[in-house]
């Protein structure tokens, strides 16, 4: 019995960590820049496709693809930021939503065109597949890896935003743009860098997701819902909040499917509604 509970909790935590990596970039850019970037999952999907392409066509080892993908999606997002996003920083939310959902739809079509509509296969290295069961609890190696990546990323982000000079600039630019400019901070550059990091993380999340939840051109629309769920429950701009929300939603999803399969798919939404009724601005949200 205890082994079941622990096993389900572990699976849920690992799933939550995947949601965290997929969502945290959006939480940061949306919270800090106030830009509704629904195309976040399009960058995640691109990350997934890059992972498949690097591994299956170019023979790059899985672990080596991850930093490459982070850099590549980050760099590409900069182009989009320069050309498209920047024009809408001051526009209304509806305009931002229309632009970015349009990008999502275009990404779906583009991925179908270049990679086809079918599921993309990835073969993980041996040392990341399989499982072992200490005390009867099944621990998948890949899920352990995912959990480690998620936790490490959370620590790096918290440290980066709270303790570094760049983090201080970001926070200053968000709190009072005019004052920050007055102090000589290049706000445009700070925002662009934040955006690139956020999108790079999305790409990384997409690459990590392929093995667990699969990849096809509908990835961007399918997981947008989950990502928005995590971001809204966690509270905009809060790394800790996103982490907590991802863990809670991940575990309740897996536990729900295991213990009450009749209600399985609905549990995650019920949890969201309850949490948002309790804290409308999200778990650690500062503004609603």
């Amino acid at each position: 019995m205890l082994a079941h509970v622990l096993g389900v909790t572990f699976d849920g935590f690992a799933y939550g960590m995947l949601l965290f990596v997929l969502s945290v970039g959006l939480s940061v850019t949306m919270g800090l820049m106030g830009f509704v970037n629904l195309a976040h999952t399009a960058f995640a999907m691109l990350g997934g496709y890059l992972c498949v392409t690097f591994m299956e066509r170019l023979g790059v080892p899985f672990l080596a693809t991850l930093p490459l993908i982070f850099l590549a999606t980050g760099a590409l997002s900069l182009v989009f930021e320069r050309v498209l996003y920047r024009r809408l920083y001051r526009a209304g939310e509806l305009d931002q939503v229309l632009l970015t959902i349009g990008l999502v739809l275009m990404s779906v079509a583009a991925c179908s065109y270049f990679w086809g509509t079918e599921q993309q296969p990835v073969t993980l290295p041996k040392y990341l597949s399989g499982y072992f069961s200490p005390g009867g609890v099944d621990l998948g190696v890949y899920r352990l890896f995912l959990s480690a990546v998620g936790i490490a990323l959370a620590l790096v982000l918290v440290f980066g935003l709270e303790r570094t000079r760049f983090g201080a600039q970001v926070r200053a630019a968000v709190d009072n743009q005019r004052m920050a400019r007055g102090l000589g901070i290049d706000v445009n550059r700070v925002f662009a860098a934040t955006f690139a990091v956020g999108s790079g993380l999305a790409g990384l999340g997409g690459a990590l997701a392929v093995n667990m939840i699969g990849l096809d051109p509908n990835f961007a629309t399918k997981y947008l819902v989950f990502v928005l769920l995590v971001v809204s429950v966690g509270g905009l701009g809060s790394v800790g909040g996103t982490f907590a929300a991802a863990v809670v939603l991940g575990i309740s999803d897996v536990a729900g499917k295991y213990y009450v399969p009749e209600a399985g798919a609905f549990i995650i939404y019920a949890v969201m509604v309850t949490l948002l009724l309790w804290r409308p601005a999200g778990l650690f949200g500062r503004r609603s």
Partner: protein
Amino acid sequence: MSRLQALGVAGGVALAVAFGWAADARAGDTIKIGLVSEFSGPFALSAKEMEDGMRLYMKEHGDTVAGKKIEIIRRDTGGPAPDVAKRLAQELVVRDNVDFLAGFVVTPNALAVADVATQAKKPTIIMNAATSIITTKSPYFARVSFTLPQVTEPLANWAYKNGVRKVYTMVTDYGPGIDAETAFKKAFTADGGEIVGSVRMPLQSADFSAYAQKVKDLDPQAVFIFVPSNDQPAQIMKTFAERGLTTSNIKILATGDVTEDAVLQQEGDAALGMITSHHYSYAHDSALNKKFVAAFAKEYGDLRPDFLAVGGYDGMALIYHVVSELKGNIDGDKAMAVIKGWKHESPRGPIMIDPATRDVVQNVYIRKVEKKDGKLLNVEFETIKDVKDPGKP
């Protein structure tokens, strides 16, 4: 209204009239098939296979029958979207004046056009959607593909005959899944077996870990799976492999949807040894199938033809048969009379349209996933002849 706007409207009207007239002028010497299917979205690959099958038949048999040119008018539902499917069917009937409706990968889209088919008396060929109930919804529906009870019951019988007594079932929570679950339970318990548990998984499942863990904890003798083809089979098998279920003593049974030929390669060795039942395998051993597979490969490259391609191919054969019997003058009731009782030698084996239900009667094969020359194949090892859909009352 400004002058410019007025001009625009007038121009638009003129254009519409011109096109409408042009369409009417051609109507006399063409047979139009309104193909409603899921060309984008999660079932895009299936819809493509189906259309490829149809076009291959046209290529092999020429695009003229009884002096009439056959024309496919293709409409995309963008996935499971009954409202869209219905609207597209209406447009095809009213505006394009089609002679046949055809296509339909998923059940909800097929069900949505039943009223349209009935009211317009348009013979409608279901080329995939496999929920049993579909053909009962309109007297103008005929199905050339399969039904889930049709392929599931023989598998349940096979399992009992081969010593399996306790089975856990896991299916997708929508029409075909429930059909499969019901059929398996009915046939298996009738034989004397026991269902130790069942789960219905949401259609949008992403992470199957909870379900796989449940199987592992229950440790049944066998598990029966149905998930729709395309994106889910590889995912669920991967999760099973990750938990060591594919190498355990638990036998994995499934309908052929789960080892669909077009996606089987992506499942990798996780699929090895699975026992499935279906009406078509790419590896089906017959001269006709070898010819079909070779022609398909020549036309479309690497993609394997699967049961969807065969559905499109045979559906087109049926349409050609009707057009030639009626000498090109398509009348709904006369067409249905020709369709009922149609017999045909398909790449999958002999098929017939049951005159009573307008559903397909065909052989069902029990297959095992094996690796030959580095490729995964559904190798048939047992044939159950002339199976009717047992899901009909």
